[in-house]
């Protein structure tokens, strides 16, 4: 049998006891926190500081890919306007810092809540639609948010909002232009929390509901799944993650403008999800890391880099149409009486 990272990993995990699992998780987490140490190695990105790349695009995009994965990968709802929630989070940070003295950590829950609210409103309106219709309407929603911001002088119109404050010094960690590492660690913490939550959901009732909806929505409903409610929850959850990413991004960038939030971002995040393996958390993480890192790494060939990026995508999707690490199949092979097809 050819080596299969997904199955090898899954088997290792399944065969580990509680302490071994803590150990594995601990090694992964410590490793992730230690990534800034790789600055200056062959991994270095030429034009932008490596550690800053770890925060944005990598960290922010991984976070967003995780959120979108619940919507697209787990529930099968094609959302092409995911950037809208990112924008809502970022603009919440911008507007609140203009008018209030709230700091980033206080703004974060507000941004998440407003993103959830917009996810709820959009979801309630469009989740009776399916497939292509849903894709088109969500695409439109993403653009509406951007165009509204563009035309609202209260949020700076095309000029956007500048002078958004950095987060305050917290537990001795400063957040300014020099502290790329600390920003990365914050986004990493959010990523870890998000992964833990998604894992909890996936293994329990909501995960089954989403999975059944993705596979056969009509049958799911007839088996008692309140499909509308769970689709709405998927949307709201995805929105909350996008909103968090938006707040964080704005607090580091200190400046936001409508053109940052165009539909390319939605498509890019969707590409991470598909490339990594729809529905599989680790696949999506790897996909987002690779695809947001590669363009930075090869920035020196500037013009050609998006071309190469596209080529990598095309080749990959031909070699592995289900993504880098496809959804785990979870089938135990060789059990009594079970013939293998």
């Amino acid at each position, binding site marked *: 049998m050819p080596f299969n990272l997904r199955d090898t990993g899954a088997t290792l995990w399944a065969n580990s006891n509680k302490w071994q699992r803590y150990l594995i998780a601990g090694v992964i987490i410590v490793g992730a926190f230690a990534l800034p140490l790789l600055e200056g190695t062959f991994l270095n990105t030429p034009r932008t500081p490596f550690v800053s790349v770890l925060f944005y695009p990598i960290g922010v995009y991984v976070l967003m890919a995780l959120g979108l994965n619940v919507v697209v990968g787990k529930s099968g709802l094609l959302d092409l306007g995911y950037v809208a929630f990112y924008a809502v989070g970022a603009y919440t940070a911008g507007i609140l810092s203009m008018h209030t003295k709230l700091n980033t950590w206080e703004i974060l829950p507000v941004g998440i809540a407003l993103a959830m609210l917009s996810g709820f409103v959009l979801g309630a309106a469009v989740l009776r639609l399916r497939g292509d219709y849903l894709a088109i309407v969500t695409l439109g929603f993403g653009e509406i948010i951007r165009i509204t911001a563009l035309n609202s002088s209260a949020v700076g119109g095309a000029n956007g909002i500048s002078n958004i404050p950095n987060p305050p010094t917290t537990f001795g960690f400063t957040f300014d232009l020099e502290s790329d590492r600390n920003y990365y660690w914050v986004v990493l913490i959010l990523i870890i929390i998000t992964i833990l939550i998604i894992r909890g959901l996936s293994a329990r009732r909501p995960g*089954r509901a989403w*999975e059944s909806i993705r596979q056969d929505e009509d049958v799911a409903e*007839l088996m008692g*799944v309140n499909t509308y409610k769970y689709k709405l929850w998927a949307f709201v959850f995805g929105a909350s993650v996008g909103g968090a990413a938006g707040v964080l991004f704005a607090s580091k960038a200190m400046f936001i403008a409508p053109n940052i939030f165009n539909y390319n971002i939605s498509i890019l995040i969707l590409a991470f999800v598909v490339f990594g393996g729809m529905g599989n958390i680790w696949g999506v993480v790897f996909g987002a890391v690779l695809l947001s890192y590669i363009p930075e790494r090869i920035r020196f060939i500037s013009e050609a880099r998006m071309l190469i990026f596209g080529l990598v995508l095309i080749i990959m999707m031909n070699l592995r149409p289900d993504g880098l690490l496809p959804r785990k199949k*979870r*089938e135990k092979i060789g*059990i009594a009486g079970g013939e293998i097809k």
Partner: protein
Amino acid sequence: MSNQPVLELKNVTMQFGGVKALNQVNLQVNKGEICALIGPNGAGKTTVFNVVTGVYVPTDGEILFNGKSLKGKNRHKITKMGIARTFQNVRLFGEMTSLENVITATDVHNKSGLVGSILNTPRSRREEKAGREKAHEILKFMGIDHRSDQLAKNLPYGDQRRLEIARALGTSPEIVLLDEPAAGFNPSEKKSLAELIVKIRDRGYTVLLIEHDMSLIMGISDRVAVLDFGEKIADDLPSVVQNNPKVIEAYLGVPADAS
């Protein structure tokens, strides 16, 4: 067996464009019985299941479950009330294991949702455990517990049909609607499925069964209703229906006395 009706269709008409798939159909299924629904292809049998489970809203007429009208009820609500079904063309969640297929159905009566699952509350833990145990128990009852961890799509055909029934039972229904559960079975498979259906009834479920195989029907049904071109043409004990000239005509396409 009592005469207490679990499911009642009253003058139900279902029209698709120009086609009356059901025309003023009256049908009563009593508690604890195996009621068979037969008829030639296109007679409207599956349509009965579809209007009962809320897939289609009948053009006219009323459907009562334990005396309560199902009008305007969502499909998942109808399932929660106690009506479960299988599908003529197997429609399992292929990418889930057999066990997960059944657990998904047991979830219908659970209380914990997203927040409970995130926080892993005691109730969520309790419900997860109970669902798993119940699903195993049902799979065992259906004789396919050894398939628990296999993906539904990889099961042999006969076990897929059994898993369909298991999943329906997972919702803890009062009545199960089985749409041709023995389709494609050989005689010995049919025989064992017939025994299983009797066992299901003996466990306290009421069964409404669509089936083409007459010997299976006659062997286990308490009552047989016959549909032809959307109309009910007979409804009686199996032995009586068997000799009903209208039924023979519907099946053979010629008047009984002409043959």
